[in-house]
């Protein structure tokens, strides 16, 4: 049990526990705060996997922007805790959901069982990190530096980058149109 194992356990518990508490919390604000805990745990796992750029991006985009947007909408709509009446439908849906999720998780474990990553039973050793991702041509190798990440984005994945930028623009225009206050006009041809 070395330090990295301990850190993995701590952050895995943080992310899974935050997720569970998020799903089962009554108040939406506390759900959002538990979600932030879970996202920061996932960011720490990215650091353990030596994907530093993605970890920073996770904290900035998810824990920073997306969850602040969630909290903003929760406060804008002013929704309180969900009603506590335990109806029969609610209990039934909880049981069915638990069975479904349990079987899904068991299925995923079954698929993962016994399939070693490189077909051997020897202890897995992680590949060495390279400083320059472009060492062998167009096959980018994993490297923690942001420079190689930027090279991959701007050289090999130029078209997807442009498409995702256009997607963000389309989302922005769509959100503006959706939330624009339209002047109320009686439509004669409908009614």
């Amino acid at each position: 049990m070395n330090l990295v194992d301990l850190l993995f356990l701590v952050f895995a518990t943080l992310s899974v526990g935050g997720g569970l508490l998020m799903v089962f919390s009554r108040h939406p604000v506390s759900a959002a705060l538990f979600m932030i805990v879970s996202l920061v745990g996932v960011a720490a796992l990215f650091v353990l996997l030596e994907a530093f750029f993605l970890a920073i991006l996770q904290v900035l985009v998810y824990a920073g922007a997306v969850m602040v947007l969630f909290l903003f909408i929760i406060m804008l709509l002013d929704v309180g805790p969900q009603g506590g009446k335990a109806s029969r439908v609610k209990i039934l849906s909880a049981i069915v959901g638990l069975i479904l999720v349990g079987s899904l998780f068991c299925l995923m474990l079954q698929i993962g069982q016994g399939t070693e990553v490189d077909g051997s039973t020897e202890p897995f050793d992680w590949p060495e990190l390279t400083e320059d991702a472009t060492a062998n041509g167009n096959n980018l190798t994993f490297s923690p530096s942001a420079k190689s990440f930027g090279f991959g984005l701007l050289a090999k994945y130029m078209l997807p980058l442009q498409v995702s930028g256009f997607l963000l623009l389309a989302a922005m225009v769509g959100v503006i149109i959706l939330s624009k206050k339209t002047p109320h006009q009686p439509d004669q041809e409908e009614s």
Partner: protein
Amino acid sequence: METITPQHFLILASLLFAIGFLGVIIRRNILIVLMSLELMLNGINVALVAFSRAGANLDGSIFVFFIMTVAASEVAVGLALLVALYKKRKSIFSEDLNLLGN
């Protein structure tokens, strides 16, 4: 990184995905359903980065970047739809959304 294998990360990723799926199924508050969708996408991201690191290939990490972009725009559009819905129905619980027309 001696004793942790990619399988540990994959088990964690499937756990995160399963918890998010549970939230999507059993919760009726649409805000929390959207958050659970984010949790499912995070599970996928963990699996992708673990594979990318174990296979020494940067493509998986770059794909995570695109997943984050799509998730951010999805959340923005989803929350705008939710606000529009709240203006019309005064409720964000999915059991109240049972009418197609007026």
